[in-house]
Protein backbone atom coordinates (compact mmCIF):
# COMPACT_ATOMS: atom_id res chain seq x y z
CA UNK A 1 0.00 0.00 0.00
CA UNK A 2 2.97 2.22 0.54
CA UNK A 3 3.84 1.51 -3.05
CA UNK A 4 0.67 3.10 -4.30
CA UNK A 5 1.72 6.67 -3.85
CA UNK A 6 4.99 6.01 -5.68
CA UNK A 7 3.17 4.40 -8.53
CA UNK A 8 0.96 7.48 -8.67
CA UNK A 9 4.09 9.64 -8.86
CA UNK A 10 5.48 7.53 -11.68
CA UNK A 11 2.23 7.74 -13.60
CA UNK A 12 2.10 11.50 -13.18
CA UNK A 13 5.65 11.78 -14.56
CA UNK A 14 4.60 9.72 -17.56
CA UNK A 15 1.75 12.14 -18.07
CA UNK A 16 4.10 15.14 -17.92
CA UNK A 17 6.40 13.57 -20.51
CA UNK A 18 3.43 12.73 -22.65
CA UNK A 19 2.29 16.32 -22.56
CA UNK A 20 5.54 17.47 -24.21
CA UNK A 21 5.31 14.76 -26.83
CA UNK A 22 1.66 15.61 -27.37
CA UNK A 23 2.51 19.19 -28.25
CA UNK A 24 5.10 18.02 -30.74
CA UNK A 25 2.66 15.68 -32.47
CA UNK A 26 -0.12 18.24 -32.36
CA UNK A 27 1.95 20.84 -34.16
CA UNK A 28 3.20 18.27 -36.67
CA UNK A 29 -0.38 17.29 -37.34
CA UNK A 30 -1.54 20.86 -37.71
CA UNK A 31 1.23 21.80 -40.16
CA UNK A 32 0.59 18.62 -42.16
CA UNK A 33 -3.08 19.56 -42.39
CA UNK A 34 -2.10 23.03 -43.54
CA UNK A 35 0.03 21.46 -46.26
CA UNK A 36 -2.89 19.34 -47.41
CA UNK A 37 -5.18 22.37 -47.53
CA UNK A 38 -2.58 24.18 -49.62
CA UNK A 39 -2.30 21.20 -51.91
CA UNK A 40 -6.04 21.00 -52.60
CA UNK A 41 -6.38 24.75 -52.81
CA UNK A 42 -3.69 25.13 -55.47
CA UNK A 43 -4.96 22.08 -57.34
CA UNK A 44 -8.32 23.85 -57.59
CA UNK A 45 -6.68 27.11 -58.66
CA UNK A 46 -4.87 25.36 -61.51
CA UNK A 47 -7.93 23.37 -62.54
CA UNK A 48 -8.22 24.99 -65.97
CA UNK A 49 -4.84 26.63 -66.15
CA UNK A 50 -1.27 25.65 -66.86
CA UNK A 51 0.20 28.72 -65.24
CA UNK A 52 -0.72 31.55 -62.92
CA UNK A 53 1.30 34.69 -63.53
CA UNK A 54 3.89 32.54 -65.30
CA UNK A 55 4.22 30.01 -62.47
CA UNK A 56 3.46 26.33 -63.06
CA UNK A 57 1.53 24.23 -60.52
CA UNK A 58 4.49 22.17 -59.32
CA UNK A 59 6.54 25.35 -58.82
CA UNK A 60 3.69 26.98 -56.94
CA UNK A 61 3.29 23.97 -54.65
CA UNK A 62 7.02 23.89 -54.03
CA UNK A 63 6.88 27.57 -53.17
CA UNK A 64 3.90 27.12 -50.85
CA UNK A 65 5.49 24.17 -49.03
CA UNK A 66 8.86 25.81 -48.50
CA UNK A 67 7.25 29.11 -47.49
CA UNK A 68 5.08 27.31 -44.92
CA UNK A 69 8.17 25.61 -43.51
CA UNK A 70 10.19 28.79 -43.36
CA UNK A 71 7.28 30.60 -41.77
CA UNK A 72 7.61 28.23 -38.80
CA UNK A 73 10.92 29.87 -37.97
CA UNK A 74 9.57 33.17 -36.77
CA UNK A 75 11.35 34.34 -33.67
CA UNK A 76 10.29 33.88 -30.10
CA UNK A 77 13.26 35.77 -28.64
CA UNK A 78 11.26 38.99 -28.57
CA UNK A 79 8.56 37.45 -26.42
CA UNK A 80 11.21 36.19 -24.04
CA UNK A 81 12.73 39.66 -23.83
CA UNK A 82 9.35 41.30 -23.32
CA UNK A 83 8.65 38.84 -20.53
CA UNK A 84 11.97 39.66 -18.84
CA UNK A 85 11.25 43.36 -19.08
CA UNK A 86 7.68 43.13 -17.87
CA UNK A 87 8.49 40.97 -14.86
CA UNK A 88 11.72 42.70 -13.93
CA UNK A 89 13.98 39.74 -14.65
CA UNK A 90 15.89 41.98 -17.01
CA UNK A 91 17.60 43.66 -14.05
CA UNK A 92 19.38 40.45 -13.07
CA UNK A 93 20.08 39.55 -16.67
CA UNK A 94 21.87 42.86 -17.15
CA UNK A 95 24.25 42.03 -14.29
CA UNK A 96 25.34 38.79 -15.89
CA UNK A 97 28.56 38.63 -17.91
CA UNK A 98 27.03 38.51 -21.39
CA UNK A 99 25.16 40.78 -23.69
CA UNK A 100 21.50 39.99 -23.14
CA UNK A 101 20.58 40.42 -26.81
CA UNK A 102 23.34 38.05 -27.90
CA UNK A 103 22.25 35.52 -25.32
CA UNK A 104 18.66 35.61 -26.58
CA UNK A 105 19.83 35.43 -30.18
CA UNK A 106 22.00 32.40 -29.43
CA UNK A 107 19.21 30.63 -27.56
CA UNK A 108 16.78 31.36 -30.34
CA UNK A 109 19.10 30.01 -33.02
CA UNK A 110 19.63 26.91 -30.90
CA UNK A 111 15.89 26.37 -30.58
CA UNK A 112 15.46 26.84 -34.32
CA UNK A 113 18.23 24.38 -35.13
CA UNK A 114 16.46 21.79 -33.03
CA UNK A 115 13.13 22.64 -34.69
CA UNK A 116 14.77 22.13 -38.05
CA UNK A 117 15.81 18.57 -37.28
CA UNK A 118 12.83 17.61 -35.15
CA UNK A 119 10.03 19.14 -37.19
CA UNK A 120 11.06 20.67 -40.50
CA UNK A 121 12.92 17.68 -41.93
CA UNK A 122 10.18 15.13 -41.18
CA UNK A 123 7.56 17.54 -42.55
CA UNK A 124 9.61 18.01 -45.70
CA UNK A 125 9.70 14.26 -46.15
CA UNK A 126 5.91 14.12 -45.76
CA UNK A 127 5.54 16.93 -48.30
CA UNK A 128 7.89 15.20 -50.75
CA UNK A 129 6.10 11.87 -50.51
CA UNK A 130 2.50 13.09 -50.62
CA UNK A 131 2.63 16.36 -52.52
CA UNK A 132 5.93 16.58 -54.34
CA UNK A 133 8.67 19.19 -54.06
CA UNK A 134 10.61 20.26 -57.13
CA UNK A 135 14.38 20.00 -56.89
CA UNK A 136 16.23 23.34 -56.86
CA UNK A 137 16.75 24.79 -60.33
CA UNK A 138 20.53 24.62 -60.14
CA UNK A 139 23.43 23.87 -57.82
CA UNK A 140 23.99 27.58 -57.53
CA UNK A 141 20.37 28.17 -56.56
CA UNK A 142 20.59 25.40 -53.96
CA UNK A 143 23.64 26.82 -52.23
CA UNK A 144 22.33 30.39 -52.44
CA UNK A 145 19.07 29.11 -50.93
CA UNK A 146 20.92 27.69 -47.95
CA UNK A 147 22.71 30.99 -47.32
CA UNK A 148 19.54 32.97 -47.85
CA UNK A 149 17.55 30.83 -45.38
CA UNK A 150 20.10 31.45 -42.65
CA UNK A 151 19.94 35.18 -43.25
CA UNK A 152 16.14 35.09 -43.29
CA UNK A 153 16.00 33.26 -39.96
CA UNK A 154 18.47 35.72 -38.44
CA UNK A 155 16.46 38.66 -39.69
CA UNK A 156 13.22 37.20 -38.30
CA UNK A 157 14.81 36.92 -34.87
CA UNK A 158 16.17 40.46 -35.05
CA UNK A 159 12.80 41.94 -36.02
CA UNK A 160 11.26 40.00 -33.17
CA UNK A 161 13.88 41.34 -30.76
CA UNK A 162 13.12 44.87 -31.92
CA UNK A 163 9.49 44.42 -30.93
CA UNK A 164 10.71 42.97 -27.64
CA UNK A 165 12.93 45.99 -26.93
CA UNK A 166 9.93 48.24 -27.54
CA UNK A 167 8.35 46.78 -24.41
CA UNK A 168 10.69 49.03 -22.44
CA UNK A 169 8.40 51.78 -23.71
CA UNK A 170 4.98 50.21 -23.87
CA UNK A 171 3.25 47.76 -21.57
CA UNK A 172 1.16 46.24 -24.29
CA UNK A 173 3.66 44.34 -26.38
CA UNK A 174 1.06 41.81 -27.25
CA UNK A 175 -0.74 44.25 -29.55
CA UNK A 176 2.53 45.12 -31.24
CA UNK A 177 3.47 41.52 -31.79
CA UNK A 178 0.05 40.77 -33.21
CA UNK A 179 0.46 43.63 -35.64
CA UNK A 180 3.94 42.43 -36.48
CA UNK A 181 2.59 38.96 -37.15
CA UNK A 182 -0.11 40.14 -39.53
CA UNK A 183 2.24 42.46 -41.41
CA UNK A 184 4.85 39.73 -41.79
CA UNK A 185 2.29 37.15 -42.89
CA UNK A 186 1.07 39.40 -45.65
CA UNK A 187 4.24 41.15 -46.77
CA UNK A 188 6.86 38.42 -46.44
CA UNK A 189 5.40 36.28 -49.18
CA UNK A 190 4.57 33.49 -46.72
CA UNK A 191 1.21 32.94 -48.39
CA UNK A 192 1.82 33.60 -52.09
CA UNK A 193 4.83 34.65 -54.16
CA UNK A 194 5.08 38.43 -54.12
CA UNK A 195 5.05 38.41 -57.94
CA UNK A 196 1.30 37.70 -57.76
CA UNK A 197 0.72 40.98 -55.92
CA UNK A 198 -0.27 44.23 -57.64
CA UNK A 199 2.68 46.19 -59.04
CA UNK A 200 2.50 49.02 -56.51
CA UNK A 201 2.64 46.49 -53.70
CA UNK A 202 5.73 44.89 -55.15
CA UNK A 203 7.40 48.28 -55.45
CA UNK A 204 6.64 49.05 -51.83
CA UNK A 205 7.92 45.70 -50.65
CA UNK A 206 11.22 46.35 -52.43
CA UNK A 207 11.93 49.00 -49.82
CA UNK A 208 10.81 46.97 -46.81
CA UNK A 209 12.64 44.19 -44.99
CA UNK A 210 9.76 41.70 -44.99
CA UNK A 211 10.34 40.15 -48.42
CA UNK A 212 13.76 39.03 -47.16
CA UNK A 213 12.05 36.81 -44.59
CA UNK A 214 10.35 34.31 -46.87
CA UNK A 215 10.01 35.40 -50.46
CA UNK A 216 13.71 35.89 -51.24
CA UNK A 217 15.01 32.50 -50.09
CA UNK A 218 12.10 30.51 -51.49
CA UNK A 219 12.05 32.39 -54.79
CA UNK A 220 15.77 31.73 -55.15
CA UNK A 221 15.04 28.03 -54.72
CA UNK A 222 12.20 27.91 -57.23
CA UNK A 223 14.00 30.09 -59.76
CA UNK A 224 11.53 32.97 -59.48
CA UNK A 225 14.58 35.05 -58.71
CA UNK A 226 16.82 34.35 -61.71
CA UNK A 227 20.48 33.43 -61.33
CA UNK A 228 21.51 36.96 -62.22
CA UNK A 229 19.47 38.42 -59.38
CA UNK A 230 20.51 35.99 -56.67
CA UNK A 231 23.54 37.75 -55.31
CA UNK A 232 21.92 41.15 -55.25
CA UNK A 233 18.99 39.69 -53.27
CA UNK A 234 21.33 38.13 -50.76
CA UNK A 235 23.25 41.37 -50.49
CA UNK A 236 20.00 43.17 -49.67
CA UNK A 237 19.22 40.54 -47.04
CA UNK A 238 22.67 41.03 -45.54
CA UNK A 239 22.05 44.77 -45.49
CA UNK A 240 18.79 44.33 -43.56
CA UNK A 241 20.38 41.94 -41.09
CA UNK A 242 23.21 44.39 -40.43
CA UNK A 243 20.84 47.34 -40.17
CA UNK A 244 18.52 45.60 -37.72
CA UNK A 245 21.41 44.21 -35.71
CA UNK A 246 22.83 47.69 -35.17
CA UNK A 247 19.47 49.38 -34.67
CA UNK A 248 18.25 46.89 -32.05
CA UNK A 249 21.52 47.26 -30.13
CA UNK A 250 21.37 51.05 -30.14
CA UNK A 251 17.75 51.08 -29.06
CA UNK A 252 18.49 48.53 -26.35
CA UNK A 253 21.48 50.50 -25.03
CA UNK A 254 19.42 53.66 -24.97
CA UNK A 255 16.50 51.97 -23.21
CA UNK A 256 18.76 50.37 -20.63
CA UNK A 257 20.24 53.77 -19.76
CA UNK A 258 16.76 55.04 -19.17
CA UNK A 259 15.85 52.07 -17.01
CA UNK A 260 18.94 52.58 -14.87
CA UNK A 261 17.98 56.19 -14.36
CA UNK A 262 14.54 55.17 -13.17
CA UNK A 263 16.07 52.58 -10.90
CA UNK A 264 17.84 55.35 -8.98
Amino acid at each position, binding site marked *: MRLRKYIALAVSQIKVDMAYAAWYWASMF*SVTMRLF*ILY*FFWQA*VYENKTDVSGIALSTMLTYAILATMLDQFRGSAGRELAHLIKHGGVAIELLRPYHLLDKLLAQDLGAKTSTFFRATLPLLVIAMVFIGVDPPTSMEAASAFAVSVVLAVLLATLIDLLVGVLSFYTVNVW*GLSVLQEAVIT*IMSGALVPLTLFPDWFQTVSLYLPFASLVYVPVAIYTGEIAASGIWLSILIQLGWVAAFFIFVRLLFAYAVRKVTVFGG
Partner: protein
Amino acid sequence: MDFLIGVLSVFGQQFAALFFLSIVFRHIESLNGWGFYEILFIYGIAFLGRAIHHIFFDNLWTIGWQYIRTGNLDRILMRPVNPLFQIIAERVQQDGFGQLLIGGSVLWLASNELGMVWSVMDFLVLFVMVLASGMIYIAVNLFFATFSFWMIDSLPVVFAVFSLSDFARYPMTIYSKVIMFVLTYIIPFGFTAFYPAMYFFEGRGFTLFALATPFVAALSLVLAYRFWLYGLRAFASTGS
Protein backbone atom coordinates in the same frame (compact mmCIF):
# COMPACT_ATOMS: atom_id res chain seq x y z
CA MET B 1 -7.80 49.31 -24.97
CA ASP B 2 -7.40 45.55 -24.58
CA PHE B 3 -10.69 45.18 -26.36
CA LEU B 4 -9.38 47.16 -29.33
CA ILE B 5 -6.21 45.13 -29.46
CA GLY B 6 -8.18 41.93 -29.32
CA VAL B 7 -10.33 43.04 -32.21
CA LEU B 8 -7.26 44.19 -34.08
CA SER B 9 -5.57 40.84 -33.61
CA VAL B 10 -8.53 38.88 -34.90
CA PHE B 11 -8.84 41.35 -37.71
CA GLY B 12 -5.16 40.92 -38.54
CA GLN B 13 -5.39 37.14 -38.82
CA GLN B 14 -8.57 37.16 -40.82
CA PHE B 15 -7.41 40.01 -42.97
CA ALA B 16 -4.32 38.02 -43.93
CA ALA B 17 -6.52 35.10 -44.97
CA LEU B 18 -8.86 37.28 -47.01
CA PHE B 19 -5.96 39.15 -48.52
CA PHE B 20 -4.44 35.87 -49.66
CA LEU B 21 -7.70 34.91 -51.31
CA SER B 22 -8.13 38.23 -53.06
CA ILE B 23 -4.57 38.11 -54.40
CA VAL B 24 -5.15 34.66 -55.85
CA PHE B 25 -8.45 35.79 -57.36
CA ARG B 26 -6.64 38.53 -59.25
CA HIS B 27 -5.35 35.70 -61.42
CA ILE B 28 -8.32 33.35 -61.62
CA GLU B 29 -12.03 33.80 -62.26
CA SER B 30 -13.27 30.92 -60.16
CA LEU B 31 -12.00 28.26 -57.80
CA ASN B 32 -13.44 24.91 -58.78
CA GLY B 33 -16.49 26.81 -60.03
CA TRP B 34 -16.82 29.01 -56.95
CA GLY B 35 -16.54 32.78 -57.19
CA PHE B 36 -14.65 35.04 -54.82
CA TYR B 37 -17.75 36.36 -53.10
CA GLU B 38 -19.23 32.92 -52.68
CA ILE B 39 -16.12 31.87 -50.81
CA LEU B 40 -16.30 35.11 -48.85
CA PHE B 41 -19.86 34.22 -47.85
CA ILE B 42 -18.70 30.82 -46.59
CA TYR B 43 -15.94 32.57 -44.65
CA GLY B 44 -18.48 34.94 -43.13
CA ILE B 45 -20.57 32.15 -41.65
CA ALA B 46 -17.48 30.47 -40.20
CA PHE B 47 -16.43 33.80 -38.64
CA LEU B 48 -19.78 34.26 -36.95
CA GLY B 49 -19.91 30.71 -35.66
CA ARG B 50 -16.41 31.03 -34.28
CA ALA B 51 -17.30 34.35 -32.69
CA ILE B 52 -20.10 32.72 -30.68
CA HIS B 53 -17.75 30.02 -29.52
CA HIS B 54 -15.11 32.60 -28.70
CA ILE B 55 -17.33 34.97 -26.73
CA PHE B 56 -19.11 32.54 -24.46
CA PHE B 57 -17.17 29.29 -24.44
CA ASP B 58 -13.55 30.35 -24.61
CA ASN B 59 -12.81 28.87 -21.18
CA LEU B 60 -13.21 25.39 -22.64
CA TRP B 61 -9.67 25.73 -23.95
CA THR B 62 -8.32 26.13 -20.43
CA ILE B 63 -9.98 23.19 -18.65
CA GLY B 64 -6.74 21.23 -18.47
CA TRP B 65 -4.25 23.77 -17.23
CA GLN B 66 -6.54 26.10 -15.33
CA TYR B 67 -8.90 23.69 -13.67
CA ILE B 68 -7.60 20.14 -13.58
CA ARG B 69 -3.88 20.72 -13.13
CA THR B 70 -4.35 23.41 -10.51
CA GLY B 71 -7.06 21.55 -8.64
CA ASN B 72 -9.48 24.37 -9.31
CA LEU B 73 -11.96 21.83 -10.54
CA ASP B 74 -12.38 20.45 -7.01
CA ARG B 75 -13.50 23.87 -5.87
CA ILE B 76 -16.05 23.92 -8.65
CA LEU B 77 -17.28 20.40 -7.94
CA MET B 78 -18.07 21.43 -4.36
CA ARG B 79 -20.71 23.83 -5.48
CA PRO B 80 -24.27 22.79 -6.24
CA VAL B 81 -24.25 24.27 -9.74
CA ASN B 82 -23.48 22.48 -12.99
CA PRO B 83 -19.67 22.41 -13.16
CA LEU B 84 -19.57 22.97 -16.92
CA PHE B 85 -21.75 26.04 -16.55
CA GLN B 86 -19.45 27.40 -13.85
CA ILE B 87 -16.36 26.94 -16.01
CA ILE B 88 -17.98 28.58 -19.01
CA ALA B 89 -19.43 31.42 -17.00
CA GLU B 90 -16.05 32.35 -15.55
CA ARG B 91 -14.98 34.08 -18.71
CA VAL B 92 -16.60 36.15 -21.43
CA GLN B 93 -14.32 37.16 -24.25
CA GLN B 94 -15.25 40.64 -25.31
CA ASP B 95 -13.07 40.73 -28.38
CA GLY B 96 -15.36 38.08 -29.85
CA PHE B 97 -17.86 40.87 -30.40
CA GLY B 98 -15.38 42.44 -32.78
CA GLN B 99 -15.21 39.14 -34.57
CA LEU B 100 -18.99 39.17 -34.78
CA LEU B 101 -18.79 42.61 -36.37
CA ILE B 102 -16.17 41.54 -38.91
CA GLY B 103 -18.05 38.35 -39.75
CA GLY B 104 -21.25 40.31 -40.21
CA SER B 105 -19.56 42.83 -42.49
CA VAL B 106 -17.95 40.12 -44.61
CA LEU B 107 -21.28 38.37 -44.95
CA TRP B 108 -23.06 41.60 -45.82
CA LEU B 109 -20.46 42.54 -48.42
CA ALA B 110 -20.53 39.11 -50.00
CA SER B 111 -24.32 38.88 -50.15
CA ASN B 112 -24.46 42.37 -51.67
CA GLU B 113 -22.00 41.44 -54.39
CA LEU B 114 -23.83 38.20 -55.04
CA GLY B 115 -27.09 40.14 -55.39
CA MET B 116 -28.85 38.09 -52.75
CA VAL B 117 -32.33 39.09 -51.71
CA TRP B 118 -33.09 38.56 -48.03
CA SER B 119 -36.53 37.75 -46.71
CA VAL B 120 -37.37 37.64 -43.01
CA MET B 121 -37.37 33.88 -43.26
CA ASP B 122 -33.83 33.92 -44.68
CA PHE B 123 -32.67 36.03 -41.77
CA LEU B 124 -34.17 33.59 -39.33
CA VAL B 125 -32.49 30.69 -41.09
CA LEU B 126 -29.20 32.57 -41.09
CA PHE B 127 -29.55 33.10 -37.36
CA VAL B 128 -30.18 29.41 -36.78
CA MET B 129 -27.33 28.39 -39.07
CA VAL B 130 -24.84 30.68 -37.35
CA LEU B 131 -25.96 29.39 -33.98
CA ALA B 132 -25.58 25.82 -35.23
CA SER B 133 -22.12 26.60 -36.55
CA GLY B 134 -21.12 27.97 -33.17
CA MET B 135 -22.57 24.90 -31.45
CA ILE B 136 -20.45 22.59 -33.56
CA TYR B 137 -17.28 24.45 -32.64
CA ILE B 138 -18.34 24.22 -29.00
CA ALA B 139 -19.18 20.53 -29.21
CA VAL B 140 -15.88 19.60 -30.83
CA ASN B 141 -13.97 21.68 -28.32
CA LEU B 142 -15.86 20.20 -25.37
CA PHE B 143 -15.49 16.64 -26.61
CA PHE B 144 -11.72 16.82 -26.93
CA ALA B 145 -11.23 18.99 -23.85
CA THR B 146 -12.89 16.19 -21.90
CA PHE B 147 -9.82 14.01 -22.51
CA SER B 148 -8.15 16.26 -19.95
CA PHE B 149 -9.80 14.17 -17.25
CA TRP B 150 -7.48 11.31 -18.16
CA MET B 151 -4.41 13.12 -19.47
CA ILE B 152 -4.52 16.25 -17.24
CA ASP B 153 -4.33 18.61 -20.20
CA SER B 154 -5.64 17.64 -23.59
CA LEU B 155 -5.01 21.06 -25.10
CA PRO B 156 -2.60 19.69 -27.72
CA VAL B 157 -5.31 17.31 -28.89
CA VAL B 158 -7.91 20.08 -29.02
CA PHE B 159 -5.44 22.25 -30.88
CA ALA B 160 -4.69 19.52 -33.42
CA VAL B 161 -8.36 18.77 -34.03
CA PHE B 162 -9.14 22.45 -34.39
CA SER B 163 -6.57 22.80 -37.12
CA LEU B 164 -9.01 20.75 -39.20
CA SER B 165 -11.45 23.66 -39.06
CA ASP B 166 -9.23 25.49 -41.53
CA PHE B 167 -10.45 23.06 -44.17
CA ALA B 168 -13.91 24.58 -43.77
CA ARG B 169 -12.67 27.89 -45.14
CA TYR B 170 -12.90 26.71 -48.71
CA PRO B 171 -15.70 25.02 -50.63
CA MET B 172 -15.52 21.37 -49.67
CA THR B 173 -15.76 20.27 -53.30
CA ILE B 174 -12.07 21.05 -53.77
CA TYR B 175 -11.07 18.27 -51.37
CA SER B 176 -10.83 14.54 -51.86
CA LYS B 177 -13.69 12.22 -50.92
CA VAL B 178 -11.92 11.06 -47.77
CA ILE B 179 -11.51 14.56 -46.40
CA MET B 180 -15.12 15.40 -47.21
CA PHE B 181 -16.24 12.26 -45.42
CA VAL B 182 -14.21 13.08 -42.32
CA LEU B 183 -15.45 16.67 -42.20
CA THR B 184 -19.04 15.57 -42.64
CA TYR B 185 -19.41 12.46 -40.52
CA ILE B 186 -16.55 12.36 -38.03
CA ILE B 187 -15.45 15.87 -37.09
CA PRO B 188 -18.36 17.82 -38.57
CA PHE B 189 -16.55 21.06 -39.38
CA GLY B 190 -18.18 20.99 -42.81
CA PHE B 191 -21.35 22.08 -41.04
CA THR B 192 -19.70 25.18 -39.58
CA ALA B 193 -19.58 27.05 -42.87
CA PHE B 194 -19.81 25.23 -46.17
CA TYR B 195 -23.03 23.24 -45.76
CA PRO B 196 -25.05 26.00 -44.05
CA ALA B 197 -23.92 28.46 -46.74
CA MET B 198 -25.38 26.14 -49.35
CA TYR B 199 -28.86 26.98 -48.11
CA PHE B 200 -28.40 30.50 -49.46
CA PHE B 201 -26.86 29.56 -52.82
CA GLU B 202 -29.22 28.45 -55.50
CA GLY B 203 -28.57 25.48 -57.73
CA ARG B 204 -25.43 24.36 -55.95
CA GLY B 205 -26.84 21.21 -54.44
CA PHE B 206 -26.09 20.01 -50.90
CA THR B 207 -29.55 21.27 -49.83
CA LEU B 208 -30.11 18.22 -47.70
CA PHE B 209 -26.85 18.79 -45.88
CA ALA B 210 -27.68 22.45 -45.43
CA LEU B 211 -31.00 21.60 -43.84
CA ALA B 212 -29.36 18.98 -41.65
CA THR B 213 -27.05 21.57 -40.08
CA PRO B 214 -29.10 22.38 -36.96
CA PHE B 215 -29.67 18.68 -36.27
CA VAL B 216 -26.02 17.83 -36.68
CA ALA B 217 -25.21 20.65 -34.28
CA ALA B 218 -27.70 19.43 -31.69
CA LEU B 219 -26.52 15.84 -31.99
CA SER B 220 -22.85 16.85 -31.66
CA LEU B 221 -23.60 18.89 -28.60
CA VAL B 222 -25.51 16.08 -26.93
CA LEU B 223 -22.75 13.58 -27.68
CA ALA B 224 -20.05 15.93 -26.41
CA TYR B 225 -21.96 16.70 -23.24
CA ARG B 226 -22.56 13.02 -22.51
CA PHE B 227 -18.88 12.35 -22.98
CA TRP B 228 -18.10 15.24 -20.65
CA LEU B 229 -20.39 13.78 -17.98
CA TYR B 230 -18.73 10.40 -18.40
CA GLY B 231 -15.29 12.00 -18.01
CA LEU B 232 -16.41 13.96 -15.00
CA ARG B 233 -17.59 10.77 -13.28
CA ALA B 234 -14.31 9.01 -14.04
CA PHE B 235 -12.41 11.97 -12.65
CA ALA B 236 -14.45 12.29 -9.50
CA SER B 237 -14.02 8.64 -8.64
CA THR B 238 -10.22 8.71 -8.87
CA GLY B 239 -9.98 12.04 -7.13
CA SER B 240 -11.51 10.79 -3.92
